[in-house]
């Protein structure tokens, strides 16, 4: 039996195709991209070796700094927003709506499945000022507030991006955290209630510590996703006004395909990959330490 489950030929037939495609289309290109970072040029005009010039250029390129700073700011704000509102939703589901939360969960979840481009264009029209007011400005006018040119300054554009991405995904984190919250044993909650804990005190001292592991994994997932944000911002603001809402992903895309600088583009992609790797490892390690402590 061991022999059958360890049959080399069968193993090769089963995993071979997946491993081959994965290696050729993902692993090799990653290494290849690393190679590109040492060159200048593109597939059409050819490449010249420049050593570490691309990295030196990144150190002084104000646009890279801007994009890196935006990426980090975006990841932090959106992660906090998504997980915070998701957590509020999950508390609402578990402790207020209880058994009847199914339909609300389903309704709050659905923006997740909508195409990002479509959602972004919808928000673009909702926050529009010219040629005519969108929903939001019209609503503000009702209260006597003047229309705001939301996409005219980087601060308000960032706000719209944040609102959109939190709108899109809080239902998702609501369900994810809900799954963690319903796992808290009822008798633990009951005994805390008997001890006189209720409302926010119950959440603060019992629910929050017990749901810390699932909160942490939500944060990891969220950071991992938000660092790579591309389509929602591209479709909503196209990185503007100017370049003030361009994350590394969009800057990399423009460098590579608008300006045809493969080497520099790969260097930016490498910076992004490094960022993802460091953040993942960092959170993974700190979360493991916490778990062993508790």
């Amino acid at each position, binding site marked *: *039996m*061991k022999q059958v*489950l*360890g*049959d080399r030929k*069968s*193993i090769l037939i*089963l*995993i071979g*195709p*997946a491993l081959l*495609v*994965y290696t050729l*289309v*993902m692993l090799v*290109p*990653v290494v*290849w*991209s690393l190679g*590109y970072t040492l060159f200048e040029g593109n*597939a059409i005009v050819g490449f010249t070796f420049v050593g570490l010039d691309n990295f030196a250029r990144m150190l002084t390129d104000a646009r890279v700094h801007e994009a890196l700073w935006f990426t980090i700011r975006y990841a932090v704000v959106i992660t906090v927003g998504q997980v915070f509102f998701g957590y509020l939703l999950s508390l*609402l589901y578990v402790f207020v*709506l209880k058994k009847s939360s199914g339909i609300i*969960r*389903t*309704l*709050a979840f*659905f923006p997740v*499945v*909508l*195409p*990002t*481009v*479509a959602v972004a*264009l*919808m928000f673009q029209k*909702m926050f529009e000022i010219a040629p*005519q007011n*969108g929903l939001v400005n*019209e609503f503000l006018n009702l209260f006597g507030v003047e229309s705001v040119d939301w996409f005219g300054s980087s601060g308000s554009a960032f706000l719209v991006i944040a609102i959109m991405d939190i*709108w899109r995904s809080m239902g*998702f984190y609501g369900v994810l955290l809900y*799954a963690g919250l319903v796992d808290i044993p009822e008798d633990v909650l009951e005994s805390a209630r008997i001890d006189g804990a209720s409302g926010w005190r119950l959440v603060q001292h019992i629910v929050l510590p017990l749901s810390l592991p699932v909160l942490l994994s*939500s944060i990891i997932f969220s*950071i*991992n996703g938000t660092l*790579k944000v591309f*389509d929602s911002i*591209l479709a909503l603001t196209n990185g503007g006004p100017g370049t003030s809402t361009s994350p*590394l*992903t969009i800057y990399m*895309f423009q460098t*590579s*395909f608008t300006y045809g600088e493969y080497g520099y*583009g*790969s260097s930016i992609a490498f910076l*992004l*990959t490094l960022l*993802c790797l460091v953040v*993942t490892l960092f959170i993974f390690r700190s979360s493991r330490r916490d778990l062993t402590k508790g």
Partner: protein
Amino acid sequence: MSTSTLTAPARPQAPAQRRPRRARWLKKLPTTIIVALLLIVEIYPLVWLLLGSFKTNKEFLEEPVWSLPASFNFDNYVDAWTTGNIAQYATNSILAVFPALFLMLVMGTAAGFALEVMVWKGRNGVLLAFLTGIMVPGQMILLPLFTVYFQTGLTGTLWPLIITYTATGLPLTVFMMATYFRSVPREVFEASTLDGANILRSFFSIGLPMIKNAIFTVALVQFFFIWNDLLIALTFTNSTDLRTIQVGLLNFNGEYGSTNYGPLFAAICINVFGTLVIYLFLNQRVQKGLTAGSVKG
């Protein structure tokens, strides 16, 4: 609405039930308001979008934004579908997404089986190699792939999309499939091999049927990921007639969107309500699947 609650026998150990009706109603009010607010915030934008898709340009410019359309005619949809090329873009999306889904699921399920059920040296290393693929941003593989597709003459077809989608979807598929196979008792496969079945046969005739629900779930999850993708589609579609629906919609906005509101709204609606219909019928499964695949972020 009130009589039934009044005459209903009070449940034991529920002191709230004995309070006067108004107090209970007041106590429930904040919850009702919160839930109502939540639903308005989540759903009203889509209602607004849908109503807008029936409006004429004149209505857009002259009526307030929350006005109802004067009539429900489908001119905007016809416009978007034909002049706006959405029909062509949707076809491209279907032609790229479904072959990729099929390939990814076949390879991913087989790999998941080999990694979880079968016993061999180095399988942990291979699983880890697949897992790191979930973390790598797409930008890290675009340029070499672009070069290769260009040099092999695949640019100008939908193959770059199919190949790239298959490969980028594999890590998550393998990971999820391995997880599902872990929950199938090993005895099942051991018993079938004792009965003399070849391991490949027990994969096809026992393994696959046992997790066909899981395969369907993963298929749904990956469908949403690929269907909604912009980065890969934008990189590898160099001509108008290859655009997927997302790239098409983005360009539609740039080309006609600033003047032709109705058709743009209709185009967004086609895109949105396509996925929404799937969600309406399969929402529980989609929720489970997407949260199980949340490692992707």
